[in-house]
């Protein structure tokens, strides 16, 4: 049995009710008004009489409508006006809806391949100093290599900015030559596979850089055959008490100055990608709590707290690399909680059990393998590969991990969505 459309039914009955009631009220009102005014002589009363006569005609027109399709013009007008008003209302809905859709579109994260042809690394020394050490000279060393094929027409963009008091400022430092090392050019004709190009320069930062994080971004793009490939990396310097969104808390055990300094150096590396830094820090401070126990470090992502312990074997603070690895992993938990749309995309793209094409969990994480541990581990391995490639602590068995080679989907996800 065909069911009646509920919209038509309710609309029809509503219209009928309104029509009946309107017509009844109008007719009675008009009749009463005409009776009362029929003897009047003033112009106003005459006008009133004429107006009411008009209303009566309108009322009769309604009657005509109800009698059916005798008057096709009237029917046409009703449909026409109905359609016109409906169109206006629909436009009122559609136009703002288009803007809403556009803003939703912005949240969607693209997923595409990254460059596997070009590698660039940049190191700055020193990377962490006290305010009292300013003014001071810093040395940058840059290595650019072709991985699979020779690269031609290489273009280099090298830019600086610093973060201070929650604000970001671009600046252009004066670069000086480092003895025996070629200055970084803006263009290179060709880089051959197996022949990396090494460059360097020095800059001086004055006392205006107190309590700031100085970030340098280098972008390299070049041609591989007919294709243009691009990659980028960062180097950062922390000066004084800047710590991005990280803050030290003595709520459990007390931090020593040297531990703080070690952590600050790791923070400068973690925050050196502006994109990662912005998304990690977008919802306020991350509390760093020192816990002097021989156990794994851990994170409370909902409350933005990281507990840095001595490590399961007690040696975390004996190694700058281990501090970076640990803090990168734990801050990855906070990042996942603060950017659940990115975590959602990570799951959708990397862990589809139905596709049969999912990539394995990263093997270096020593405990239970779950997506919510694999995500921060991906971040940690990416950061470690960027600053300490082939560092043996990030390993599976005897082999250190290279994210790009060993877990290309994880690597591409990092390049396209996180860093």
């Amino acid at each position, binding site marked *: 049995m065909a069911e009646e459309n509920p*919209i038509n039914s*309710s*609309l029809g009955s*509503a*219209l009928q009710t*309104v*029509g009946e009631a*309107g017509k009844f009220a*109008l007719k009675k009102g008009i009749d009463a008004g005409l009776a009362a005014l029929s003897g009047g002589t003033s112009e106003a009363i005459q006008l009133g009489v004429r107006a009411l006569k*008009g209303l009566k*005609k*309108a*009322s009769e*027109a*309604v009657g005509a*409508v109800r009698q059916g399709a005798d008057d096709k013009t*009237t029917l046409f*007008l*009703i449909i026409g*006006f*109905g359609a*016109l*008003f*409906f169109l*206006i*209302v629909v436009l009122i809905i559609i136009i703002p809806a288009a803007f809403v859709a556009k803003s*939703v579109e912005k949240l969607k994260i693209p997923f595409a391949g990254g460059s596997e042809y070009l590698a660039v690394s940049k190191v700055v020394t020193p990377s962490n100093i006290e305010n009292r050490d300013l003014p001071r000279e810093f040395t940058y060393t840059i290595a650019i290599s072709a991985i699979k094929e020779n690269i031609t027409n290489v273009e280099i963009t090298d830019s600086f900015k610093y973060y201070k008091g929650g604000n970001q400022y671009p600046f252009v430092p004066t670069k000086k030559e480092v003895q025996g090392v070629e200055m970084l050019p803006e263009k290179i004709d060709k880089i051959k596979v197996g022949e990396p190009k090494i460059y360097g320069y020095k800059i001086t930062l004055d006392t205006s850089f107190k309590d700031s994080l100085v970030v340098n971004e280098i972008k390299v793009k070049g041609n591989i055959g007919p294709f243009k490939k691009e990659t980028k990396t960062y180097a950062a310097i922390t000066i004084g008490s800047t710590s991005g969104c990280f803050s030290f808390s003595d709520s459990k055990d007390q931090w020593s100055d040297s531990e703080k300094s070690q952590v600050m150096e790791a923070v400068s590396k973690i925050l050196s990608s502006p994109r990662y830094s912005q998304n990690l820090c977008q919802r306020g401070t991350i509390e760093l709590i020192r816990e002097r126990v021989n156990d*794994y*470090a*851990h*994170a*409370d*992502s*909902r409350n933005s707290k990281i507990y840095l312990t001595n490590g399961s074997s007690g040696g975390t603070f004996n190694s700058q690399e281990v501090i970076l690895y640990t803090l990168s992993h734990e801050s990855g*938990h906070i990042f*996942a*909680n*603060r950017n*659940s*749309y990115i*975590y*959602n995309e990570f*799951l*959708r793209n990397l862990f*589809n059990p*139905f*596709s049969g094409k999912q990539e394995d969990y990263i093997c270096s994480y020593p*405990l239970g393998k*779950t*997506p*919510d*541990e694999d*995500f*921060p581990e991906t971040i940690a391995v990416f950061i470690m590969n960027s600053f300490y490639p082939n560092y043996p602590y990030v390993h599976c068995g005897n082999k250190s991990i290279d994210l790009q080679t060993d877990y290309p989907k994880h690597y591409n996800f990092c390049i396209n969505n996180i860093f």
Partner: protein
Amino acid sequence: MRVFFKKYWFLIFLSFLATILAFLKLLLHFTSIPETTKNTWNNISPGLTTKADLEKIIGKSTPWKQEGDFSIFLYPSENQNWPTEIYFSQKAKKVELIKEYFPKENKNYQNFINLYGQPDKELFGPHQGAGFSVFVFLKRGVAIVANPESGLILEVWYFPPNISLGDFIEKFGQNLQQAPEVKF
């Protein structure tokens, strides 16, 4: 034109009113509870749907995998790469659980709280390190894997309404914890 409006003002008024009514009806339609948040999902009702009923809906198919008592069948979803899982209990001879992955964007944590009130229980599963918990609405037969801060939902589960928490955990939540784990 003026004469026309004067002559037919009442009809114009009626057309306008009809449009407003139609608009209100549409608005009510869009703000009503989406069908997929009810306990019956695409005509499959956990606790009621038999194998024969299920075959009428998904056709005769072999289970994607076997997990304990459950034969898990797949049902195509709007998300091409993530079909919905239908758990058929061999003991009960009924569908007992439906798991929908990455539901539509219009479903978020707050929608569910507005519809069902506060969850009966928060449990902790494999996404807790990213701030996602399993929020269980026992009377409604619905659980969501959601991040309450962002509102994002990873999964919606449909199961027989009004079961006890113990039954829920025993049947569907054996890998869930009642308290958050420390995430290393």
